[in-house]
């Protein structure tokens, strides 16, 4: 599976590398545009020392954690959200006649190596925050768990978004609210949002487990909204449940695919 993905990704990268100027430019642009998010955080903290009780470096930590997971999925999975384009163009059929899962092929389709710029930016921010905060290593072990959990959650969200497009063929942008919107939401401490919103991203769409709940543990903090301590460790379970739901939805989507007229 990994080798098949790598082969597909490599082929697309080689095709894109035929235009090296644009390739490099896109990496730089990806780096710069996501750096603007950080600039916004820095501007906020130029005017205040804490945001709902969190310091600048703590906010950068939460931002960096969510962004690493998101940027990795954006690079490796997000192409799945073009499924409605393939349905409309009739090109989905060609994925379905291959002996490899359509999900894997669609994720790798037109693989865009220049998204590495965003991943690098996110890794830098997270690395800076972890170093600056001098986190206790008895708690910091959760950081890799958190990043992997986040990757699974975002990958599952994208898969759900792709599955939804089998039904919502004419409104593919609708589902972006959950993927890109989910990332926007997780960039700040969740306690800045209304309590009902936080509840729904904890118990319905488990975005709170991308960085918020495990992040609170890493930072050695109590939840300002008062969830119990064991919630910090439920991320992997929540991610697994969402991934299962996404896999089922995807299967249903494929089984109910109607193809085009010819």
């Amino acid at each position: 599976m990994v080798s098949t993905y790598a082969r597909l990704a490599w082929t697309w990268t080689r095709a894109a590398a035929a235009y090296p100027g644009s390739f490099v430019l896109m990496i730089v642009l990806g780096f710069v545009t996501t750096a603007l998010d950080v600039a916004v955080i820095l501007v906020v903290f130029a005017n205040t020392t804490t945001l709902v009780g969190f310091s600048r470096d703590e906010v950068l930590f939460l931002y960096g954690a969510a962004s690493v997971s998101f940027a990795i999925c954006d690079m490796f999975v997000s192409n799945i959200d073009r499924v409605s384009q393939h349905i409309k163009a009739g090109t989905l059929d060609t994925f379905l006649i291959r002996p490899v899962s359509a999900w894997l092929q669609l994720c790798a389709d037109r693989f865009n190596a220049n998204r590495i710029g965003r991943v690098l930016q996110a890794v830098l921010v997270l690395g800076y925050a972890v170093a600056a905060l001098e986190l206790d290593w008895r708690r910091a072990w959760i950081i890799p768990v958190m990043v992997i959990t986040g990757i699974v959650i975002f990958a599952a969200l994208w898969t759900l978004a792709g599955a939804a497009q089998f039904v919502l063929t004419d409104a593919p942008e609708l589902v972006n609210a959950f993927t890109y919107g989910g990332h926007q939401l997780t960039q700040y401490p969740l306690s800045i949002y209304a309590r009902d919103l936080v509840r729904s991203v904890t118990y319905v769409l488990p975005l709170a487990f991308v960085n918020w709940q495990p992040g609170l543990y890493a930072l050695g903090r109590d939840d300002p909204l008062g969830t119990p301590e064991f919630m910090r460790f439920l991320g992997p379970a929540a991610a697994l449940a969402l991934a299962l739901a996404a896999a089922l939805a995807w299967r249903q989507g494929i089984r109910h695919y109607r193809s085009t007229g010819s």
Partner: protein
Amino acid sequence: MIELDRAGRSFKVKRRLVHAVRDLSFAVSPGEFVGYLGPNGAGKSTTIKMLCGILTPTSGTVRVAGLDPSRKRTTLARRIGVVFGQRTTLWWDLPLADSFELIRHLYKVDRAAFRSRLAELADTLDLGAFIRTPVRQLSLGQRMRGDLAAALLHAPDVLVLDEPTIGLDVVSKAGIRDFLRRLNAERGTTVLLTTHDLGDIERLCRRVMLIDHGRLAFDGTLGDLMATAPDQSSIEEVVARLYTGSGAT
């Protein structure tokens, strides 16, 4: 090799149920070369898509190479080759050779077998001149030859062709027909061919099936087909009679 038992596929279109294919039963044995005819919208493409597992039948059963296509789609993919004349299965922006290399990887064809098969296909389909050209720059005839080669690199037992000669000039058509005839005769590959070009049928198919309004309207040899009409009728006239005769709309 192919078995359909009362297979049907319906679609909901604006709250009405439309039966693209209904109660379709037929069997194709290994090594047969079958022409699959029908007017536009008769259900030919729907049948083909059920055969390769793209569409799940809404009733009845479909078996290809002993497998249920919609449930065992990726397993079946290794044993079936599919060519859509209307659309390429190759990677649009990649050179033909890169597409083939990807296919080798996707189908896990071993390197030695791949090399000898590709050499043979490149030779019989005359791919040499454009194998390094991106697919989007190929002419229709070149692209179709590339698509045929791509569908056969994994040496499938069954080859399903959906209008492979559509839009081709007479020379390209003749080349493709000759290639298909030899593939069937020398390798014993089972071939199911849909086409609107009755020349394809006359030159290639021993058996003809005709589908109309989602039902099988004729199944027999080419000779039987010709016998349904008065003597001296051309195949075009025979088929036209069947299309309008069984239409009943």
